[in-house]
Structures are given as C-alpha cells and as structure tokens.
C-alpha cells in the first residue's frame, strides 16, 4: 500500500521521505511556537512555521539522501570486492594468499 502526500509523494516507499516530512513538521512546530512565544505575533509566527517546515524538511532530505548515496556506493564496492575475491581465489592475485619463492624477504 502507498500513502501519497498531495497525491504524488509516496512517503512509505521513497527512502528518507517519511523522516523528512516528520522532522519538517517537528521543526515547523518548534520554530513557529518558539517565534510566537518570543514575539506574540501570530501572522509572522505562521510564516516562520511554514518556512521552518520547508527548510527542515529539505535540509534533512539532502542529509539523508547523501548518506544513502554513500551507502549505495559502499554496497557496490563490497559486491565487486566479493565477486573479485571469488574470481581470484587461489590465483596469484588472491590478496589472502601468502607470498612464496623469491618474493620472500627472509631468505
């Protein structure tokens, strides 16, 4: 099942979307309420709340997607490393194989 915000953003399926919207809402509440408590201006506090929602949501989104991209790169490197290990196991390219013959330094 999917839950689409405004009909197009599926927060259940898209990675980082749910956390971005939730943190955005929290940031909006904190900033709007904080501004109101400090200034008692309703209209301006609503503006700050909406601005806070957008900034917090996009800020967490960029941070989370950056980490996700790095994780995916590491996963690809791991996968390639595992494939190469299987491919080179037992051959002279095997990194786990002990050095023998003229390459030994204690002769």
């Amino acid at each position, binding site marked *: 099942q999917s839950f689409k915000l405004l009909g197009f953003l599926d927060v259940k399926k898209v990675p980082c979307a749910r956390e971005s919207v939730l943190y955005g809402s929290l940031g909006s509440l904190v900033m709007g309420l904080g501004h109101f408590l400090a200034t008692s201006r309703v209209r301006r506090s609503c503006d700050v709340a909406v601005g806070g*929602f957008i900034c917090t949501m996009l800020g967490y989104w960029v941070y989370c997607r950056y980490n996700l991209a790095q994780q995916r790169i590491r996963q690809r490197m791991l996968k390639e490393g595992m494939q190469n290990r299987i491919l080179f196991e037992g051959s002279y390219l095997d990194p786990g194989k002990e050095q023998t013959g003229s390459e030994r330094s204690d002769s």
Partner: protein
Amino acid sequence: MANHAQFGFQDASSPIMEELVQFHDHAMMTALAICSLVLYLLTLMLTEKLSSNTVNAQEIELVWTILPAIVLIMLALPSLQILYMMDEINEPDLTLKAIGHQWYWSYEYTDFKDLTFDSYMTPTADLPLGHFRLLEVDHRVVVPMESPIRVIVTADDVLHSWAVPSLGVKTDAIPGRLNQTSFTANRPGVFYGQCSEICGANHSFMPIVVESAPLANFENWSSLLLSQ
C-alpha cells in the same frame, strides 16, 4: 512489467534507471516543498483583506529571484550528472541491432556469428495460461547479465521506438538512421517494453522482451539458435 493501474516507475534493472528513480524522488520532494509554500500563500491570500500599501518591493523581489534560482540549481545538478552518466563511453561486451518493422522487431547479433531473428507478439489466442497479454513475444532478446550492452536501433519503414522502462531505455527507430543506446542489466530477469512511436494500425502490438541471463545461459541460447 507494470502492474494493473500502476502509476509509478517499474523496479529498476539497470544502474541508470536506479539513478533516474532516485532523481525522480528528489524532484518530487522539491515539488512537495514548493506546493506547500504555494498552498500556504494561497490560503493567506484567500483569508486576508484585499489591500496593498506596498511602495517599495526590493526585498520580495530579491527573495523571489534567489529562491527559484536555488530550486533550479537543486534540480539541475543531479539531472546533468545523470545526463552525462548516460552518455559515458563504456566498452560494451555485446552489440545488438534492433530494427523496427511494421509490426514486429528484428534483432541481429553479428559480433561473432550472424544470428538474426524476428520477434513477433504472441497472439492472445495462443497465449499460455499465466503469460502477459500483448507483452509476450515468440523470440526474446537474450543478453548476458551484468555486461554493458550496446543497442543500435533503426527502422525499416516508418518511425518506431525501442523502449524498455525497467532498463531506462527508450530510443527512436528512424529509417535511414542508426541511433545508439546502451544498458547494463544488473540482475537476471525478463523485462518488458512496447513500441513507443506511433507506427500504424498495430503499433500497440509489437512489444519488446529482454531476458537477461548468466553468460553460460546466453551462450547456450545463442548456440541453440544458430544451430536451428
């Protein structure tokens, strides 16, 4: 293939399609932020009195110039990255020619020996139980998985388009012209597509089926076809 009433992308089967899906998510989140702002401003305008005593609009003009510029940069940078990624020069392991006809595709594997076959849609009356209507073909395009494949697309008569959404590939087939695209299927599977350029009465009935398989299976398949 797509599920019934599917609205979003199919699962990605190539690195480029994965990147496109990620970019689409990023664009939708940016759209959500913009729509939230617009909805809020709309609500304000509908609830406020219609009056304006603004004589100097320098600040608002600065805001509504800089903010859209930031949004455009946020969208343009990943978009251009993917665009250039799609055009990277890689060394394909296999070259496949796809030729569009009215109303079927023909494929040629001519790297080693001349393997040529036609790919017609399986009529619904002949479809085995459980197979997909208007998507199955008599001869699938088999490619080795996790290998860069170059596809040269052209047409014999009218405009066609060779498209496989799951691989992130769509290339126009133009008579007298060779268009090139490439993909890497990063998992084994069967990927469906349909002709994407109107080409006559049976435009909807000339599907494309790409089957990616381990290299050994691909070699067996090509040997079998060559021997026939």
